[in-house]
């Protein structure tokens, strides 16, 4: 009907389909593709071309957002492999992970009550360290020795951490502004 939307996001940007990604290459491919399809290039064109440009530019931005975020990228790779990460339904987590979660929450709560922005920022840094470690684990089970079940669990864990990051960000914003 319209553009070739069967192409996956990696193919769209002519990048290898894997978790470890050259961010600079992604940025550059996105800019090139976005420049080619941006509606500004078709402001003086016919309706059909304008519609196609809007759809293509939208899709290019969506693909970029998906590949740029490690969590979204991992989820997408699993989805391409036919694996459902079951983030809404599968909430069972290893007890040690759950304990760590509770600790994080307590620390955030304490910092929030104490209106301690510096403490919240330290928590963000620590959390990002944990996120980085999870991403390295994900790379191993997605790129090196594929194990979809473990990868799906890691995606669920990563999602928990992203939510924490968001909560800390909201708390900082609420204190600052």
């Amino acid at each position: 009907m319209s553009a070739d939307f069967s192409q996956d996001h990696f193919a769209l940007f002519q990048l290898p389909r894997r978790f470890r990604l050259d961010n600079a290459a992604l940025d550059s491919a996105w800019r090139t593709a976005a420049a080619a399809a941006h509606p500004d290039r078709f402001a003086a064109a016919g309706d059909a071309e304008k519609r196609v440009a809007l759809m293509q530019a939208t899709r290019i931005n969506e693909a970029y957002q998906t590949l740029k975020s490690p969590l979204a990228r991992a989820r997408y790779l699993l989805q391409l492999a036919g694996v459902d990460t079951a983030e809404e339904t599968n909430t069972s987590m290893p007890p040690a992970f759950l304990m760590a979660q509770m600790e994080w929450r307590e620390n955030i709560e304490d910092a929030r009550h104490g209106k301690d922005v510096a403490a919240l920022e330290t928590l963000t840094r620590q959390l990002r360290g944990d996120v980085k470690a999870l991403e390295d684990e994900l790379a191993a089970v997605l790129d090196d020795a594929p194990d979809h079940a473990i990868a799906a669990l890691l995606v669920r864990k990563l999602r928990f951490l992203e939510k924490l990051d968001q909560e800390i960000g909201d708390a900082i914003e609420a204190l600052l502004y």
Partner: protein
Amino acid sequence: MALLQIAEPGLSAAPHQHRLAVGIDLGTTNSLVATVRSGSAVVLPDEQGRNLLPSVVRYAPDGSTVVGYAAQAEQSRDATNTIVSAKRFMGRGLADLQDVGRSPYRFVDAPGMVQLVTRAGTKSPVEVSADILRTLKTRAEASLGGDLVGAVITVPAYFDDAQRQATKDAARLAGLNVLRLLNEPTAAAIAYGLDNGAEGTYVVYDLGGGTFDVSVLALSRGVFEVLATSGDSSLGGDDFDHRIYCWVLEQANLHGLTAQDTRLLLTRAREAKEALSEHATTRITALLSDGLTVDLELAQATFHDISRTLLDKTLLPVRKALRDAKITIDDVKGVVMVGGATRMPQVQKAVGDFFGRPPLTNLDPDKVVALGAAIQADVLAGNKGGEDWLLLDVIPLSLGIETMGGLAEKIIPRNSTIPVARAQEFTTFKDGQTAMSIHVLQGERELVADCRSLAKFVLRGIPPMVAGAARIRVTFQVDADGLLSVTARELTSGVEASIEVKPSYGLSDDEISRMLTESMTHVQEDINARKLREAIVDAESLIAAIHAALEVDGDLLAAEERAELDGALIGLHTAIATQVTREVNAATQRLNQISEPFAARRMDRNIQRALKGKNIGAL
């Protein structure tokens, strides 16, 4: 319809013909129109050589509409019929306006947007803005000697969907073809960046008459990428005037002023503010209607004290934008100052102190937005510019929908690059449910009540099924103007229901054309002849564009597809021969539809070629 000629990328249809396009800065206090002439952007002055057009509209007793300096001169004498700062009311309901008390106007609440009662009848802020735009359009056409193909109109980056839609409606009402709504700080960055060959991360601090915007942009190799934007759509230079006005009331112990006296003192306050940008002290004198004289001296230091909280208020969005862009002050290579209000020394000092470097003020803060808009308009109109550059802008506020318990769920987060779309699936809650109501919101807050309501619509005709079986996909699409459209589809029943939602505050196409017709003095035959002429111009442009495309990429079509396209081309030629507008439009639409897959394949090819780094010239 638009009298746009279709230029194939790279193939200029008429290389010697420069298409007349303008950039318009529709400001709270002043508006400007600019164009690109002989390769450089210039502001178009009026017959007296004045660049600015005060954004003031007076509905005079003789039935005429007066815009600009002449209207401004009467604003104290005829306050209720002389509308200033109409931009503050765009897309706003009465409940949104915190400062109704300080306006001399008679407001009426209307669905979606407040209206003002004047001697010329009830006017919506859209109509008032259209009067300003019409004046600028006339100025531009007189100065350029021809009809405009279109205009880029700037809006504060922090304008929400309602305010953007209202601006676009005003332009349509003024008979302008809107090539693009462009964010003001982005426009400033274009003018500044192209002028200075800037590279790196820049902050644009834009304090206008009634709005405050801040954008963080990354400039690299001709790409202007907006990383984050924030602001306050009801904070501006007017508020500084108001601080002085309040100080005068306090010092002179004044109460219960008439609308006329309020207007007079606000004007004196504005003059004092401007004087204090140059001098250490200024005198404020006024003769009030009851014979009382106000005579006060205001020192710069006092002004700084009474306006300090306003400055602090601008720094919050600055912090927020830096945080959203994930950068720190050290990453910022320069701060560009935009808007007349940034002339105030205390504003420059506060910004300089915050960033630890003096802000950049080498472009006229009043003109820079209009100049950037003109450069963008020139490119969009198809006049090939010297530089090849691209603008990647973002949506300023998150879009979401109402979920259970009056909570807002975000669908598209703020600062997403536009155009952007997200689809969300919903299902039914009860057995046999055939309708579903969807409430679209914009804002960052968790509660529906704290967000702006953009549209409420009911999706009907869902086939009766058990609860949870229906699958309704709602798609939110934000286009390159930052405007939202929502479509909904039921996926399980073989038949797909699809609806297009226009947010409730927007004027419908019918309303626009009714208002246009009412404002036109032409007789009906003229209008019909004009419509036919426009339809034929559109049709012929499309035919030319498709022929050009076939020449380059004809190999993308299979024989039967080519035959179908040729058939539609012949159909359009036949329709043009009938000289019936309806036939021509229908055949144009058919050809557009049939050529869409071809256009899509061509674009795919172009993207892939661009990525392979081949020089295809066309893009």
